[in-house]
């Protein structure tokens, strides 16, 4: 059982830190989180429906009706968001980030859109000006964390095992090991998946969805939940536009159809086009 939140995790999740070559900790419990603070908002009202009617009449004969049901049915009002546990821990993370004046960014995309490459490039270009930390999420391997580690940035790899997304609980534990300094930026590279991570708030301030021009320009329409919950969309690999049938105008329109608040930046991570706009966006978000 973890000392911080009192959890017995239900996932086979492991944490690795490349630079220290150590295996942090692993949870392999049966199921069910049991958090120390879990019951503070439990409003359970019990309605007991037992039909005992007693009628008294004023005239001289009196009789009693007694209906007894063999099955007593109790209805308990729960009125709770099914994701409340994740949301509660996400709020806890959010408070942690706010207190430390950190900017937490959740990077989401399908596999192969260039999340890690964009991250590597960003870390190398901006590491003199900004302090970065990275949490990498993948089902298996520490390949991505090794790539980030090579840039000199402190990184922690979460392997979700069979899990298809990171959740706020994993981030809470990753932060215990990462111990980020104040006034820094935390990139959380989620598991490559445009579906499941959409539902799980990690406590981030910004959610950046990345698509590449080798995918379809209708991606926002196919995976609307992710685009609806994101704040910035990066369209990557624009240097390949001459070779693929990707209509960038249509992609922009589709993304804005789903989320009219969405900001959009076009970049070519390998050629460097548009990267300055992305860096300006980052600087604006940290208030520089």
């Amino acid at each position, binding site marked *: 059982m973890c000392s911080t939140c009192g959890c017995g995790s*239900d996932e086979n999740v492991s944490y690795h830190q490349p630079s220290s070559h150590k295996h942090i900790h692993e949870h392999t419990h049966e*199921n*069910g*989180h049991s958090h120390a603070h*879990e*019951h503070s908002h*439990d409003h*359970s009202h*019990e309605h007991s429906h037992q039909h005992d009617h007693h009628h008294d009449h004023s005239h001289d004969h009196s009789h009693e009706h007694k209906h007894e049901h063999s*099955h*007593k*049915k*109790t*209805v*308990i*009002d*729960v*009125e*709770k*968001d*099914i*994701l*409340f*546990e*994740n949301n509660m821990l996400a709020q806890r993370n959010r408070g942690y980030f706010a207190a430390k004046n950190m900017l937490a960014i959740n990077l989401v995309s399908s596999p192969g859109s260039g999340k890690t490459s964009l991250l590597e490039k960003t870390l190398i270009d901006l590491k003199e000006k900004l302090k970065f930390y990275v949490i990498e999420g993948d089902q298996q391997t520490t390949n991505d964390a090794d790539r980030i580690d090579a840039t000199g940035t402190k990184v922690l790899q979460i392997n979700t095992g069979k*899990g*298809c*997304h990171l*959740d706020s609980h994993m981030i809470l534990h990753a932060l215990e090991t990462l111990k980020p300094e104040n006034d820094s930026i935390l990139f959380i590279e989620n598991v490559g998946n445009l*579906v*499941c991570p*959409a*539902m*799980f708030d990690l406590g981030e301030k910004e959610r950046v969805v990345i698509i590449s021009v080798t995918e379809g320009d209708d991606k*926002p*329409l196919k995976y*609307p*939940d992710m*685009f*609806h919950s994101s704040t910035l969309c990066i369209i990557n690999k624009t240097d390949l536009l001459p070779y693929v049938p990707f209509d960038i105008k249509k992609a922009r329109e*589709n993304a*804005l*159809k*789903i*989320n*009219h608040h969405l900001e959009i930046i076009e970049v070519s991570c390998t050629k460097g086009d548009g990267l300055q706009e992305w860096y300006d966006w980052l600087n604006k978000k940290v208030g520089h």
Partner: protein
Amino acid sequence: MHELSIAHSLLSIIERSVPSGNKGTVTEVHLDVGTLSAIELDALVFSFDIIKDKTISSKANLIINSIQGKGKCRSCGSVFPIDKFGEACPECNSFSIDILQGKELKITSISIED
């Protein structure tokens, strides 16, 4: 398949909602699920049925109250039902739509029988 994670959350909420000492069987679990909640209902029921064995919810059925999505157009102000993101306003064809309702994912009550 995030529905499996959701089903796990569901089980743990049910377990903590049953008063200690109650030896009854959970028979019904009532949910409010919005049409824009990113949940595939069949997958949720399937996942729940797989993992409920040998728990307090082993005889429980999910009873789902589907909540129709509702949007409000920022351009013309009209309010209308929506089934998915990316639908245009039926009045003015604008895509500047704020979601008023339909993202619910809530367990409302459970029934326990002796």
